[in-house]
């Protein structure tokens, strides 16, 4: 009975595989090995930070909001983390905790502005982003703080060619997948993103899931910031802007098949989207493409990849007839249901009549 629909995550995977194949060939033409450990590590490293941001962004987008403030949250987190650690390994737990708490606070503010003040997510987070930028510029002049060696290991160690940071990112993706799939908050987030009024009429409190999504999004941006601090060894007030993470993460999320209007999408799609971008970037870097041209290619790839499935994602009705007027048999189930429905009605009618002994 389950009606099959080509899941957009599958399409994303397809595009990714295509990108990998083309990438491998292109890299082969310049005499390099696509699957060499160094190259794999380059791709995966490229995925880690954006991946973390995209995971958070997915949550917000599922809830039909947006978060443009992630760039500044990332910068702030890298600074907070690095300055609190101040080169002392003993400070790591406190630094991580305080940083994530502050980020959660920013997410909470975003969430409250969006849900309580009813400001559109785009504008709300554009505004908080500006505020954060002001705070960063006022309080930090250039990179500061110092990350102890122990914490730097997170950004520089790997299991074989797989960086620890990627493993952390994937592990968190699993966690979020679990959250979306197996918790009420997740289910309610899909509902609120799909249609807040329907969610409300169904008894869902519409604010908490969206607030939670914003909080988590900022926390994930904070994690990305900490990861960057670990890789950079210092905190930097511009590291978020450097990566253009806000728009790229939204692009990756949509590339991964999540509906920008909310209510549909998956975390794995977003990770796939990030992977596509990382592979494209890697191939272009190895090929030494002109940096300006890289942006052109990125732009085209993003649009083209989304175009592959966006038309397909809008399924209308099941066709009943094939090209020449032949029956596709797609409606057999519904046809069978007709009779079952009739049978069910009469059976129900019988039982009630029997129970009540007739009715006027």
């Amino acid at each position, binding site marked *: 009975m389950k009606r099959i629909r080509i899941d957009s995550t599958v399409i994303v995977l397809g595009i990714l595989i295509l990108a990998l194949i083309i990438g491998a060939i292109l890299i082969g033409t310049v005499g390099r090995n696509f699957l060499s450990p160094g190259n794999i590590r380059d791709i995966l490293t490229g995925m880690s930070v954006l991946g973390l941001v995209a995971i958070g962004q997915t949550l917000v987008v599922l809830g039909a909001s947006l978060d443009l403030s992630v760039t500044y949250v990332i910068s702030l987190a890298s600074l907070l983390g690095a300055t609190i650690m101040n080169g002392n390994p003993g400070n790591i737990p406190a630094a991580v905790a305080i940083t994530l708490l502050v980020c959660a606070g920013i997410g909470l503010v975003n969430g409250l502005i969006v849900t309580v003040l009813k400001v559109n997510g785009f504008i709300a987070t554009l505004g908080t982003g500006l505020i954060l930028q002001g705070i960063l510029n006022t309080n930090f002049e250039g990179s500061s703080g110092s990350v102890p060696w122990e914490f730097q290991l997170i950004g520089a160690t790997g299991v074989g060619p797989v960086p620890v940071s990627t493993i952390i990112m994937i592990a968190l993706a699993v966690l979020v997948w679990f959250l979306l*799939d197996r918790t009420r908050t997740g289910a309610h987030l899909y509902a609120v993103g799909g249609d807040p009024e*329907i969610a409300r009429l169904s008894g869902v409190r519409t604010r908490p899931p969206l607030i939670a999504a914003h909080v988590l999004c900022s926390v994930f941006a904070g994690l990305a910031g900490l990861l960057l601090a670990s890789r950079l060894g210092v905190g930097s007030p511009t590291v978020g802007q450097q990566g253009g993470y806000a728009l790229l993460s939204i692009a990756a999320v949509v590339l991964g098949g999540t509906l920008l209007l909310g209510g549909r999408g998956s975390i794995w799609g977003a990770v796939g989207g990030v992977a596509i971008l990382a592979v494209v970037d890697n191939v272009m870097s190895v090929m030494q493409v002109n940096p300006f041209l890289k942006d052109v290619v990125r732009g085209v790839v993003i649009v083209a990849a989304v175009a592959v499935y966006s038309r397909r994602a809008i399924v209308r009705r099941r066709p009943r007839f094939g090209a020449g007027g032949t029956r596709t048999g797609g409606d057999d189930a519904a046809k069978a249901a007709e009779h079952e429905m009739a049978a069910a009605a009469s059976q*129900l009618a019988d039982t009630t009549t029997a129970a009540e002994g007739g009715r006027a």
Partner: protein
Amino acid sequence: MNATTTQPVLAVNGIRKSFFGVEVLKGIDFDVRPGEVHGLVGENGAGKSTLMKIIAGVQPADEGVVAYRGEEVRHAHPRQAMDAGIVTVFQEFTLLPERTVAQNVYLGREPRRAGFVDRKAMISSTAALLADLGVSFIDPQARVGSLTVAEQQIVEIVKALSFDAQVISMDEPTAALSDREVELLYAIIRRLTSRGVAVIYVSHRLKEIFDLCDRITILKDGALVSTDETAALTTDELVRRMVGRSIQSYFPDAVDGTTVGEPRIELEDCGNAYVDGVSLTLRAGEIVGVAGLQGSGRTELVEGVFGIQAFTRGTMRIDGSPVRITSARAAVRAGLALVSEDRKAQGLALGQSVLDNALLVVRSVFPGRTSASRREVPGVLSSLEISSRGLDQEARFLSGGNQQKVVLAKWLLTQPQIVLFDEPTRGIDVGAKYAVYQLMRELAAQGKAVLMVSSELPEVIGMSDRILVMHDGELVAELPVGSAEHEILGAATGAVDSPNSTDGGAR
């Protein structure tokens, strides 16, 4: 049945409610008793849905009290009402198309185990609920968007039943259902009442009201008219109280001087992905009805003619000359009009004014005629007796019937020659229905061809000069005026083999 149990389970007293300073409920008293089906009727905009929403805790009343099991309650969120046992099937679907049946049914109160959603339990209890109703054809794990409208309505009802409800309000649950599913719903409701559940039932199909209800409350313009035992009312009396006047006949006779003329549109063996082998002829001055079960492809038929799902096979002629209509635009240019089935999704831009909606088609297709049409708007609107607060009023604030009239106005302004009506009276009240019927007769009298798709058999029988019946994507029969319901149903269910299905309408 013991419908006269004295103590009401739910009672409302002196409910008042205003929107933007306009009072839409003017002190309503109303109660339901356990095991009773209480019908709530009234014209479009009478305030039925608003009352339901107040009971459901969706909107607060401005004044008045809601007493549940003898105690005054103030539900600020639908969830509170649901938990207390007051459950509502709203007029608009409250299902998320991207989520599965089980996820929708348990939305807001997913069963949990160790803090996590227990998917297995959710699926199995949804399956159990479905099985309890004898519905085995809906998969709890199917995406709701992939279900037919009727199946979605059943899911909606299942969702309501999944609560341990004492009172279930159903706001036009049958608007999207054909008779088959209505029967199923009847059975479900009877089973509920036999368990002592109280049901508030809102419908514009008076037959259902009389079939099902124990008592009937009539609202008019936000005020309570009467509450009576069903046995004490007749259809005529009910209608008189609803509209304030008596309507002699539901279905006006043809306007004098209406003559059936030349064929205006002819289809020969047309087909697309949804319908096939459609051959029919519509003549000037003729009203042709199309009957069929839900999902039999009637909407696809008119959408095919109108170019929305353009026919990929067969030939079409308008006024004798062959045409290819591959877009709605081409159809409008060729003189067609389609009053679509779903007013909110396809008919109106609800945030725009009455005037802008009325001019929607002219502006889209004949921009050059905009200013001329603009001058005609007041005349057309008043001939349809639209009651709005002015041309500037947003369409969303009109009641259903008035919205439908705006849709009609939008098409009349294009002066169409062939008018396709898809469920023209769905969800509108008797008064507005009558106006629509009269309009159809007038169009016919003006020599236009009218095709009407309807799920209400009395309407098809009462209005049509010929009746076409669809089954599973094909035209299976053509029946003459005055055919009986069982004949139509026979053809629609495929039980009776029609003599010749291919040229059903061509004669």
